[in-house]
């Protein structure tokens, strides 16, 4: 079986990205999964162990101190080096912000074809086929690359397959980074320590709030319901613009696309651009005081009502069920 490279993003403080398991799972479907990492010198042993546990057969660690000073250059150089060393049949990268950008630069450098935002990948007679969900899930498109190597970015949280844990062989190489054509990182501001809530991408349940929540203080209601259900928190663009939540929570056309089992929209009108990010959810619930809100056109269960009375009652009712069962 040929090698399939999975570029694993590692945070400046050494944390392996949550997309690693998905990428290695996807890579193991297509060939021999090889994790490629650009990391600070001295991190290869820990990375080898962590990524082997997620299914990598080989972990290729390109070490450079520039990971904290040069934007994307180390990851691009690491992939290009691994590509020439390991002759892979495909390169998989997360469709995160860093991921898609470094994938693009690598594709241009290697004269590879680029397939973006795949929600699924498979091997068809040796060729890599990517499936895409286009225009908010209105279309499913399959694509492939002809005439060169293939680089695929995979939507975060889209593929559930996981590879079996193993003890990976670790290859460590020093990385010479030519950072001339890249920006300089002056400072890194990590998000405050992640809450216990699941990641919005890939979450089974998402509770989102819109402008109808009225204020940052009152938006807490969305978080309370989310915590009752073990759900991730999402939002409309209007809620983001109003400062109720950070932009990373935005669901929709210019935000995150989610496809959970259950999506609950609170005080969200359901503009077409919001729907583009959530209408492939299995079950949609909406609470809105306007009976004509377009969100009801796609809701499996809609309540015309005030979120500030219905949601507390819902939380209470769920609590009672929990204690009865």
């Amino acid at each position, binding site marked *: 079986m040929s090698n399939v490279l999975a570029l694993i993003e590692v945070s400046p403080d050494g944390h392996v*990205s949550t997309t690693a398991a998905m990428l290695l799972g996807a890579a193991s479907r297509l060939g021999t999964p090889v994790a490629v990492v650009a990391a600070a010198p001295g991190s290869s042993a820990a990375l080898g162990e962590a990524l082997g546990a997620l299914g990598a057969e080989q972990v290729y660690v390109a070490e450079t101190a520039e990971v904290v000073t040069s*934007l*994307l250059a180390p990851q691009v150089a690491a992939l290009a080096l691994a590509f020439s060393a390991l002759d892979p049949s495909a390169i998989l990268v997360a469709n995160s*912000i*860093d991921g898609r*950008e*470094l994938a*693009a*630069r690598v*594709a*241009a450098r290697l*004269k*590879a*074809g*680029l397939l*973006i*935002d795949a929600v699924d990948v498979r091997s068809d007679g040796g060729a890599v086929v990517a499936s895409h969900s286009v*225009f908010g899930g*209105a*279309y*499913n*498109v*399959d*694509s492939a*690359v*002809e*005439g060169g*190597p293939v680089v695929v970015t995979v939507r975060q949280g889209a593929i559930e397959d996981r590879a079996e844990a193993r003890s990976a062989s670790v290859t460590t190489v020093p990385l010479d980074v030519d950072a001339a*054509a*890249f*920006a300089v*990182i*002056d400072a*890194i*501001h*990590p*998000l405050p320590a992640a809450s216990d809530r699941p990641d919005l991408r890939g979450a089974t349940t998402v509770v989102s709030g819109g402008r109808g929540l009225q204020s940052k203080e009152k938006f807490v209601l969305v978080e309370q319901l989310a915590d009752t*259900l073990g759900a991730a928190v999402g939002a409309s663009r209007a809620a983001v613009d109003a400062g109720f939540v950070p*932009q*990373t929570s935005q669901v929709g*056309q*210019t935000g995150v696309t989610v496809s959970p*089992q*259950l999506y609950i929209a609170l005080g969200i009108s359901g503009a077409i651009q919001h729907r583009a990010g959530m209408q492939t959810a299995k*079950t*949609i*619930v909406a609470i809105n005081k306007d009976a004509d809100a377009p969100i*009801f*056109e796609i809701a499996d*269960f*809609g309540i*015309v009502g005030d979120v500030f*009375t219905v*949601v*507390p*009652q*819902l*939380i209470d*009712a769920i609590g009672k*069920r929990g204690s009865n069962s």
Partner: protein
Amino acid sequence: MKIVVLVKQVPDTWGERKLNIDTGWLDRTSSDAVIDEINERALEVALSYQDSNDAEVIALTVGPASAKDVLRKALAMGADSAIHIVDDQLAGADLILTARVIAAALTKADFDLVIAGNEATDGRGGVIPSLVAEYLGVRQATYLDSVTITSDSVSGERGTENGSMSVHATLPAIISVTEQSAEPRFPNFKGIMRAKKKPVVVWSLGDLGIDAASSADSGHSVVLSTRQRPARTAGTKIVDDGTAGVALADFLAAGHLI
């Protein structure tokens, strides 16, 4: 300073957007075509620099004949001139070819700073600025929530899933901006009238020395199949009579969702 803003014509997100089932390409007849909102923000970043500095602002698009409308809009907002790359060979161009064409056009036009949107609303690739940067061998400072331009560098806050970082690049450079970056100005009547007299240069692939067929020497993507998903329909809708929260809990329990 010479600033080139990359603008794209896209189907209006307010309408129903369609793909041609046979080719997988955008069905341009089915919806209104508009300038992508994110590119108005990109242009605003350039124009607000120009408001208080000496700068020339050029809008550049790669697209069919109809794409001249987005250049007119950019000129009406305040761009000084525009470049339109149009060629029948570009029908169905993939990201790689589009980026090669943009890179060649930027080389021909010359620039100090290129400003793009972070992601187009139709293809949602978010990769054109990076591809172009690699082809040109210039620095990229992309996905900026805020931008500061000086005479020899550009800096800003790059937001990612894990937080943000402050980055800078000396010019020449290519940047892309997010929705958080700027609120675009509206073209006023004077701007619309003046736009009619501003120059729009039209280039073909031949003018750029690009042969679309030669893209075969690098990988290119092909669409294998396109299927339309059935539209979603409405389910139950109730009006809260004081017990809707309980009814919803029942619904969720019945579906094993709690």
